[in-house]
């Protein structure tokens, strides 16, 4: 018998339509006389928005994840990348992406892979800029590339202060990027559009953090498998006004669910959190956990990839970063605000030290009332697994129950579904749960 009432998300169809439209826009950009660009999920896309309203991107990571859903197609793309000479231990998203170019096939409509007019990205893990450097070369060598280095050090409280030269370094690269964009596209830059986009970036990422806060409720109004379909807007394009508006709607709905005790999982008995990207082709493992009454309420990955938070050392808590008091008024101010905002991303901090991530994860475990932590030792992403073994040790030391499994977010050859299910069963049993028929 169900412990809690459930109901479908009302905004689910809208989420689906927005997502499909995003990918269609990239594919059909040329028919509308628009511009296409490619880049990473963390690229400061607000900067590109100043080029006009008809500028569309394909975002590398979610695109790579979409490829992984279609296992035969992904196998074809991965083989193409390996046949070209790329090592198979490289980022699985990246190999799916390069494979798409090499096969000239767009995973989302099976048409030809739409060639981007330029590449705009950021760089913090070893592969970000190299991804697009190689993509540009595979496209024939005539796609210009600009990357913003955001490896400028950790954000307070993990560093004593946010040194001005660090923000300036990132902001100045954005300023240079604007000049470069005008040159490679021949378009005049619109500062008004840019400043609005900066505000939308902050609005969207702050709101996503607020939505995640609602999942502290018992029962959790959202489960992580659903969260994967919702956080993606903050990953596809943070400065997209439609996406930011959608998060406002979503917030209201999730708030209402939490107030009325509407559960994501009707038999919620235990709450879990995870880490890093899941093996995208095998999200059924989340449904399997639900049979035990276990709901995964989120992760630093889903909370922090699309949301902007600050870690409060004193309260040992993650707090959604508050919006600035006023909108930026000039291009320079916009770049400075955007740089500062992006440098505080929780998912940037662990690149400097695993202890920073352990603190934030432990704060989630405690404040979202998690009974256990599941770590995905993800062979497909060096960036988000960096330090993961130390995270495991640190979380155990802090009294958490931790399980780890090995897999790959985008290369099914490196995920053992049966072994993972067995491991999950043992872990869930150790939490005192029993599988329900």
């Amino acid at each position, binding site marked *: 018998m169900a412990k809690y009432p459930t109901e479908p998300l009302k905004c689910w169809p809208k989420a689906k339509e927005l997502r499909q439209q995003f990918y269609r826009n990239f594919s059909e950009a040329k028919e509308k006389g628009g511009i296409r660009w490619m880049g990473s999920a963390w690229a400061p896309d607000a900067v590109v928005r100043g080029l006009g309203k008809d500028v569309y991107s394909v975002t590398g990571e979610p695109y790579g994840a979409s490829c992984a859903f279609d296992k035969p197609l992904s196998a074809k793309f991965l083989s193409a990348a390996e046949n070209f000479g790329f090592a198979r231990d490289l980022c699985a998203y990246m190999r799916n992406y390069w494979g798409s170019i090499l096969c000239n096939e767009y995973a989302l409509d099976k048409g030809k892979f739409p060639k981007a007019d330029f590449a705009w990205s950021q760089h913090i893990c*070893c592969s970000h800029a190299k991804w697009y450097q190689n993509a540009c070369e595979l496209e024939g060598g005539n796609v210009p*590339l600009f990357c913003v*280095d955001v490896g400028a050090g950790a954000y307070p409280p993990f560093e004593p202060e946010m040194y001005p030269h660090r923000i300036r370094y990132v902001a100045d690269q954005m300023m240079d990027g604007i000049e470069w964009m005008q040159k490679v596209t021949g378009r005049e830059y619109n500062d008004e559009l840019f400043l609005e986009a900066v505000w939308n970036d902050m609005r969207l990422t702050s709101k996503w953090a607020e939505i995640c806060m609602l999942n502290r409720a018992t029962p959790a109004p959202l489960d992580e498998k659903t969260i994967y379909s919702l956080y993606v807007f903050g990953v596809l394009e943070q400065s997209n006004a439609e996406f930011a508006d959608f998060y406002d709607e979503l917030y209201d709905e999730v708030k209402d669910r939490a107030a009325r005790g509407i559960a994501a999982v009707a038999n919620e008995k235990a709450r879990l959190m995870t880490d890093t990207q899941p093996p995208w082709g095998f999200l059924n493992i989340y449904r399997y956990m639900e049979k035990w009454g276990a709901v995964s309420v989120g992760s630093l990955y889903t909370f922090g990839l699309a949301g902007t938070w600050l870690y409060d050392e004193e309260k040992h808590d993650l707090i959604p970063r508050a919006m600035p008091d006023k909108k930026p008024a000039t291009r320079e101010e916009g770049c400075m605000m955007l740089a500062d905002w992006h440098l505080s991303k929780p998912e940037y901090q662990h690149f400097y030290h695993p202890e920073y991530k352990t603190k934030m994860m432990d704060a989630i475990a405690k404040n979202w009332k998690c009974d256990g932590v599941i770590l995905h030792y993800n062979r497909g992403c*060096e960036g988000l697994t960096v*330090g993961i073994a130390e995270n495991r040790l640190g979380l155990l030391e802090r009294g958490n129950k931790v399980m780890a499994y090995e897999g790959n977010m985008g290369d099914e050859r490196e995920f053992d579904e049966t072994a993972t299910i067995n491991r999950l069963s043992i872990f869930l049993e150790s939490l005192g749960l029993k599988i329900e028929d």
Partner: protein
Amino acid sequence: MAVEKFQEWYENRHAYQTDWKKRTGSKIVGFFCTYTPEEIYYAFDILPVRILGSHEIQDVTEPHLFAMFCPFCRDVLAQGLKGRYDYLDGITIAQSCIHLRQAYTSWEIHKNPGWSHYLPMPNHVQSPRAVPFLVGEYEILIKRLEDLTGRKITDSDLNKGIEIMNKVRRVMKDIYEFRKQDNPPITGLESMYMTCSQFFTDAREWLPVAEEVKKELETRKLERDPGKRLLIVGSENDDIEFIRMVETLGERESVGATIVVEEHCTTTRYFWDEVEEGLDDPLTAIADRYVSRTPCPSKDWPQRTRLQRILKFAKDFNADGAIVIQQKFCDPHETDIPFIRKFLEENDVPTYFLEFDVTTAVGPFAIRVEAFLETLDQEDDLF
């Protein structure tokens, strides 16, 4: 022969460093990557020593590093966990790859010597914004080193550091000139001992030996057939056993080889470029050098500038072929390798690719290298 001193230092690094500390009463800081500005450490009279692995199979890093990270970073961390560097006063890393960064952070968590510093070396080294940013980071580093040593430095101290490191770089380049000869008077193995021993010793004590070696090489003749001349391209490759194997193949097989030059971060990427001396602002001069040196591939974008440097080495040192070594799981190099191989082949430099693990036996690679050397002798197709 003075050249043998390099090997002695390489093999007895810990004995040297503990003795140095006892003799001088000064501090030693271990560094993990060649982007560390040693000039600044010398300005403080601190001995910067690079931490390299021991090429042994080890079993201590498994709980700390996920297995998909490179064997080199695991080997390096093992040195700390096994207590081989317990005499260090501090550790530091300049931002390069995230693999090695984990060795540093795990070391800091479990074997913290009391002082540690993470230097966010810029990745966008082709940007004009990189130098001012790095100067800002050097200013933070200097404050941290003031905490460690209890002293302040002046521009004159920095100029002293620059002079020391530039002398090292010059003498290494001079010695590399000898490797251009038809029958080089110094082998690849000896050259590797030379560069690595400099990581482990006080440059002021290493320099007179290097100068003596330079003199000796003017008249030295090696009683060996140099065989094929090879260029090695790779990441962190101080694998002495591999080089020894390649250079002694000729003693056992019909083909032999000498490694005449390398493009990797143990040798040329480390020392090839100098700091401009005599400038008013030595800190900016140092920053400029580290930003404009031949980059690690993780920083070599948007242009892939390494290609021209690699080709120039191949030509200047008259290489018959190149072995492209990939440290297993080394993402930055893995993203470059297909393009490097293509570029070298297009420029008539035969290329062979080896995936490598510094902690495994070298034997299985012998037959592969031998096969490559045999292909270099084939002038025409058989059919």
